[in-house]
C-alpha cells in the first residue's frame, strides 16, 4: 500500500459503509418505521463507524504511518490554533535545545571528532617519567634517548620526533620570522600523511649537511604563489640554504594544539657543529609520537619502552637517572586531557538546563491539557483507545520539540559564530566547533527525547480520563483535582531544585574566576609591551648578540612614551621554560642527583621594567656584563627551598646551562627578587633563578617595554626602532603583557561565563514555571477566592495565600537543590581556585537570589488574585 492510495481506500470504504447504511434504512422503512426512525435504526445496526474505519485501516496494514501523518496534521493544526502557546513553548525549547547544541558542538569538535590522520587510534604520545617528581611528570626526550628508543623498540611501527623552532626566512621581499618545526625524517610517515607535491624526507636528511625542508600548503601558497616547480629549489633560513623536498596538503599540522608551522625542517641542522643537540643526552626538548604496530596495546608499548628507558638510566646516570620509565598516552587523550573535565561540567550543566526546559514545558502542557480535557473525553467516548490518545499527544509534543530544535539549531549557529571571540582558542580544536551532520543528528535525537520526556506525563494523565465525568464537569470546573496539582507542583519544585544547583555551580565558578583575576602575578602587567626579534645566532657571536640588544634597548628607552625597556627569557605565561640543574657550593651530591629549577636570563633593568620587587641585595646592572664576575639572582621560593633561615646573598651556585657554550663558573648570589606566576595565574609560584643575559646568551629574549600610555598603541614605534638599527631583523610575537594574562584566564572565563549564562536561563525558566503554576492556580480557584473574599478575607490574606504557596514550593526546591549541590560541587573542587565547594558566601547569595526571584514570580499572580472583585467573580462563575 502506497500512501497516495490511502485516500482512495478511505473513499472506497466510505462508499461501502454508506451503501450498507442506505440498504438497511430502506429495509427498516419497508418494515414500517418512519424515515427518521429508520435512519437511527440503520445507524444502530451498522455500529460505531469511527471505530469501524479505524479497525478497517488496521486491516489494511501500513496504518501506523498513515496514523502518524494524521496525528502530525492534527498536531500542526493545534499549534496553529494557539499561536501564543506554541510560540512560548517553542522559544523555551529553542533556548534549551540551542544551548545543548552549542555545547555539544564544542564537545563534538574537541573530544569526539577523530584526529585527522589515518588510523588515529594507533597514534600515541610518548615521554619519559620524571621520578624525582611526585605523580605523573612527563619529561620530553633528548635526541640520543629518542634515537635509542626508536632503534630498540619492537612494539611501534614508527616513532617520530618534533620540536618547535623559530627561523628568519630571507627572500627578495625582505626577511620575516617563521614558526617552524624540526622533525625526524619519518614524521609525516608516522602520522600517515604524504606530501601533496614532491617527496617525503629520506633517512639521509637527518645527517649533517643534508638540510631539507617540507613546506606547508599555506606558506607555499603565500610565499611561492603555489609554484609547482618549487620542489628541488633552495630557500634561505637563518642564512643557510635548505632544499625544498615537497609540500604538505592543506591544513596538515601536528600537534593540533600549536599554531600551524610554516614549514618543517629535517633535523640535519641539529646534528651539525661541535657537540650538536643530537648528541646531548641532557637536552630534553623533543616531542615524540609513535604509531602502534597492529594488534599491539598501549600497555605493551609502555612495558617495552620502559625497559629501554631503565637500561638508559643505568647506562647514563648522569642525565637519565630519574627517567627510568616511559609514559605512553593515546594521542586523542593527550590532546584533550586538560579540557575534558571542563567540557564535561558544561555538558552536565546544559543537560540540567534541558531538563528544566522539559519540566517547564511539561507544566505548560499540563495546564493546557486541563483545558483540553473535554476534547479528549469526547475522543475517548467516540472509541479512541488510550494508546491512540497518548500517541496523538506525544506526536503533538514531539512536533513542538522538533520546531524548538530547529529554532535551537538556528540559535546555536548564530551563537557559535558570535562566541568565537570569547572561546578559549588555546583549547585544541575548539575552533572547529561547527554545527555539522553529527551535531544535527544529536539535535534530532535530543529533540525527540525532549518531546517524549515533557509530553509523556501530561499525555499519561489525559489518557486516564473517565469520559463521563470529564464531560459532565464541562468547562466549569476543569481542574484536574489533587493529582494534577501534585504533579504540577513536583515539576515546579524540580525546576527550582535544578536551578539552585546551576546557580551554585555558576556562582562558585564565577567567584573562582574573580579570584583568578585578583591574583597578583608578582609583576605589573599593565602598560607593558612585549615582542621578540629574530637575531641570527650564526651571524653574530655571543658578545655581539648581547651588544646588539644593549644598543637596541638604549634606543627604545630613549623613545618618547617609553618609561623603561629591557629583555628577558622566558616571558611569564608565554609557555616557554627551561629547567636546568645546578650545584650549590659546599653541598656535594652524587652525579645525576643534582637539583634543577627553572632558569631565566635577563638584561639589566628587567626586574624594574616588569616591576618584580627586589627583596634583598641588588639587581643586575652593567657590572654583570660579558667581562664581569659570574652572578646569579634567585627568587624567594628558591631561597626558601635551598637556604631556609639563611641569608642567600653571597652564596655560590654553579649552573650547568648551555653545555657547549659556557664554562660552568661558580656564580655568586647577588640578589633575591619576588616570586612570579611563571606558568599562569592559577599556578603556584615556583623556585626560579636568573642569570645575566650577557653571561648566558641562549636564545632570543623577549623585549619588555613599559610605556606611559596604552601599550598596544606603541607596537609600530617599537618595530620602527628595531628596523632603524637593522632592517633585516624580523619583529614577531608583539603583544601586550595584558594579553598573556587574559589568555591565562581564558579557560576559567569561558567556563564561568557559559555556566552563568546557563544558570541565568535556568533561573528565568524556574521563575516562569512558578509564575505559570500560580497563575493557573489563581484562574482555577477564582471561585474559591471570590467566596473567601465575600466571606471577609482581606486582600492581604489572598496575597499571603498565593505567595505563601509559591514560597513553600521554592523552599522545598531550594532544599533539594542544596542537597544535590553538596554532592555535585565536590566533583568540581579541582576546577575551583582558592574557593571551597561549600563556600558559604556563594551558597547564601544564591539562595537569597532564588528566593527573591520566587517572591517576584509569585507576586504577580498573587496581586491579580487580590484585586479580584468578589461580586463579579461569583456572578460570572
Amino acid at each position, binding site marked *: 500500500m502506497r500512501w497516495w492510495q490511502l485516500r482512495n481506500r478511505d473513499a*472506497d*470504504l466510505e*462508499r*461501502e*459503509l454508506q*451503501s*450498507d447504511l442506505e*440498504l*438497511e434504512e430502506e429495509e427498516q422503512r419497508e418494515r414500517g418505521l418512519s424515515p427518521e426512525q429508520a435512519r437511527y435504526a440503520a445507524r*444502530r*445496526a*451498522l*455500529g*460505531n*463507524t469511527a*471505530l*469501524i474505519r479505524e*479497525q*478497517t485501516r*488496521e*486491516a*489494511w*496494514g501500513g496504518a501506523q504511518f498513515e496514523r502518524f501523518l494524521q496525528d502530525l496534521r492534527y498536531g500542526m493544526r493545534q499549534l496553529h490554533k494557539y499561536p501564543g502557546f506554541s510560540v512560548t513553548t517553542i522559544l523555551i525549547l529553542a533556548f534549551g535545545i540551542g544551548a545543548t547544541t552549542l555545547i555539544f558542538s564544542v564537545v563534538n569538535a574537541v573530544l569526539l571528532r577523530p584526529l585527522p590522520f589515518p588510523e588515529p587510534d594507533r597514534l600515541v604520545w610518548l615521554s619519559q617519567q620524571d621520578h624525582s617528581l611526585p605523580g605523573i611528570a612527563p619529561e620530553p626526550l633528548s635526541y640520543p634517548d629518542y634515537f635509542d628508543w626508536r632503534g630498540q623498540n619492537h612494539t611501534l611501527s614508527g616513532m617520530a620526533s618534533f620540536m618547535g623552532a623559530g627561523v628568519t626566512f630571507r627572500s627578495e621581499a625582505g626577511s620575516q620570522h617563521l614558526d617552524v618545526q624540526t622533525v625526524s625524517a619519518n614524521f609525516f610517515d608516522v602520522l600517515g600523511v604524504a606530501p601533496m607535491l614532491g617527496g617525503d624526507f629520506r633517512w639521509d636528511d637527518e645527517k649533517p649537511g643534508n638540510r631539507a625542508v617540507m613546506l606547508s600548503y599555506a606558506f607555499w601558497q603565500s610565499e611561492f604563489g603555489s609554484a609547482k616547480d618549487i620542489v628541488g629549489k633552495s630557500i634561505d633560513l637563518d642564512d643557510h640554504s635548505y632544499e625544498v623536498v615537497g609540500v604538505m596538503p592543506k591544513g596538515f599540522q601536528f600537534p593540533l594544539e600549536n599554531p600551524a608551522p610554516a614549514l618543517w625542517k629535517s633535523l640535519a641542522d641539529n646534528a651539525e657543529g661541535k657537540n650538536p643537540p643530537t648528541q646531548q643526552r641532557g637536552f630534553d626538548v623533543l616531542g615524540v609520537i609513535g604509531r602502534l604496530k597492529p594488534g599491539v596495546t598501549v600497555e605493551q608499548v609502555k612495558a617495552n619502552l620502559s625497559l629501554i628507558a631503565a637500561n638508559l638510566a643505568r647506562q647514563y646516570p648522569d642525565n637519565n637517572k630519574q627517567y627510568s620509565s616511559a609514559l605512553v598516552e593515546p594521542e586523542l587523550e593527550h590532546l584533550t586531557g586538560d579540557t575534558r573535565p571542563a567540557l564535561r561540567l558544561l555538558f552536565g550543566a546544559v543537560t540540567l538546563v534541558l531538563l528544566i526546559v522539559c519540566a517547564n514545558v511539561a507544566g505548560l502542557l499540563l495546564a493546557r491539557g486541563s483545558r483540553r480535557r473535554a476534547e479528549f473525553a469526547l475522543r*475517548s*467516548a*467516540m*472509541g*479512541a*483507545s*488510550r494508546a491512540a490518545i497518548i500517541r496523538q499527544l506525544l506526536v503533538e509534543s514531539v512536533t513542538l520539540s522538533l520546531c524548538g530544535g530547529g529554532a535551537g539549531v538556528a540559535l546555536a549557529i548564530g551563537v557559535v559564530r558570535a562566541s568565537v571571540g570569547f572561546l578559549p582558542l588555546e583549547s585544541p580544536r575548539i575552533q572547529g566547533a561547527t554545527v555539522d551532520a553529527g551535531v544535527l543528528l544529536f539535535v534530532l535525537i535530543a529533540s525527540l527525547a525532549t518531546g517524549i520526556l515533557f509530553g509523556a506525563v501530561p499525555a499519561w494523565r489525559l489518557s486516564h480520563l473517565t*469520559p463521563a465525568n470529564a464531560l459532565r464537569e464541562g468547562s466549569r470546573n476543569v481542574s484536574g483535582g489533587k493529582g494534577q496539582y501534585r504533579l504540577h507542583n513536583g515539576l515546579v519544585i524540580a525546576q527550582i531544585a535544578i536551578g539552585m544547583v546551576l546557580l551554585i555551580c555558576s556562582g562558585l565558578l564565577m567567584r573562582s574566576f574573580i579570584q583568578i583575576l585578583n591574583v597578583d602575578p608578582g609583576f605589573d602587567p599593565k602598560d607593558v609591551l612585549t615582542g621578540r626579534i629574530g637575531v641570527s645566532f650564526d651571524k653574530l657571536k655571543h658578545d655581539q648578540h648581547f651588544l646588539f640588544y644593549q644598543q637596541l634597548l638604549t634606543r627604545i628607552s630613549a623613545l618618547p612614551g617609553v618609561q623603561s625597556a629591557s629583555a628577558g627569557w622566558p616571558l611569564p605565561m608565554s609557555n616557554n621554560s627551561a629547567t636546568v640543574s645546578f650545584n650549590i657550593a659546599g653541598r656535594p651530591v652524587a652525579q645525576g642527583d643534582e637539583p634543577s629549577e627553572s632558569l631565566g636570563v635577563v638584561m639589566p633593568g628587567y626586574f624594574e621594567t616588569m616591576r618584580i620587587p627586589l627583596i634583598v641585595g641588588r639587581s643586575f646592572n652593567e657590572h654583570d656584563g660579558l667581562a664581569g664576575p659570574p652572578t646569579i639572582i634567585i627568587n624567594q621560593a628558591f631561597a626558601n627551598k635551598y637556604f631556609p633561615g639563611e641569608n642567600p646573598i653571597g652564596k655560590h651556585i654553579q649552573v650547568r646551562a648551555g653545555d657547549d657554550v659556557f664554562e660552568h663558573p661558580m656564580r655568586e648570589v647577588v640578589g633575591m627578587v619576588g616570586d612570579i606566576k611563571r606558568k599562569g595565574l592559577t599556578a603556584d609560584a615556583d623556585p626560579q633563578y636568573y642569570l645575566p643575559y650577557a653571561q648566558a646568551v641562549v636564545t632570543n629574549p623577549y623585549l619588555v617595554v613599559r610605556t606611559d600610555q596604552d601599550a598596544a598603541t606603541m607596537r609600530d614605534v617599537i618595530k620602527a626602532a628595531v628596523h632603524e638599527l637593522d632592517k633585516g631583523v624580523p619583529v614577531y610575537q608583539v603583544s601586550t603583557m595584558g594579553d598573556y594574562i587574559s589568555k591565562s584566564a581564558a579557560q576559567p572565563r569561558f567556563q564561568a561565563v557559559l555556566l552563568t549564562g546557563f544558570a541565568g536561563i535556568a533561573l528565568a525558566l524556574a521563575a516562569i514555571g512558578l509564575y505559570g503554576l500560580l497563575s493557573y492556580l489563581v484562574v482555577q480557584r477564582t471561585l474559591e477566592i471570590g467566596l473567601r473574599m465575600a466571606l471577609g478575607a482581606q486582600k492581604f490574606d489572598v496575597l499571603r495565600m498565593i505567595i505563601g504557596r509559591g514560597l513553600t514550593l521554592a523552599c522545598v526546591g531550594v532544599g533539594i537543590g542544596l542537597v544535590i549541590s553538596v554532592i555535585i560541587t565536590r566533583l568540581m573542587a579541582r576546577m575551583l581556585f582558592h574557593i571551597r565547594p561549600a563556600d558559604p558566601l556563594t551558597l547564601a547569595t544564591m539562595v537569597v537570589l532564588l528566593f527573591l526571584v520566587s517572591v517576584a514570580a509569585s507576586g504577580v499572580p498573587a496581586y491579580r488574585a487580590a484585586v479580584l472583585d468578589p461580586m463579579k467573580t461569583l456572578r460570572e462563575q
Partner: protein
Amino acid sequence: MSSIAKQAQQSANLLQGTLDMLILRTLLYGPAHGHQIGKHIQRTTNDYLQMQHGSLYPALHRLQRRGWVTAKWETAPDRNREFKYYRLTQRGRKQLAVEESLWKRMAEAVARVMSPAAEES
C-alpha cells in the same frame, strides 16, 4: 478507556476467529456485498450473534488483504445500483476447508467434554 469502546473491542476479538469462517462460508453460495453477508449471518444464526454490520467490514478487508476474497464494484442484477461484491478465491476455499475441519474437531472435543454420556452410547 470508554466502556463503549471496550465492548466493541471485546466483541470484535471474540468474533474475529469465527467471523472469518462465517464470511467465507457465506460466500461459498456466490458473490455477495457486505449488507447481504451480514443479513445472511444474522438470519442463519437467528440473530443469536447480535452482530452489528459494521464489524463485518474490518474482517472483509482483512480477508481481502490475505487474498482469500476479491472485491469489485458491480451493478446489482435486480436494481440499478452499484455494490461492492466479494467473491471467494481458490485460496479462500482452501482456507475455509481448513477452518471448517478445525472448527469441527474443536466442536467435537467440546461436545465430548460437555456430554460424555452421549459419547458412550
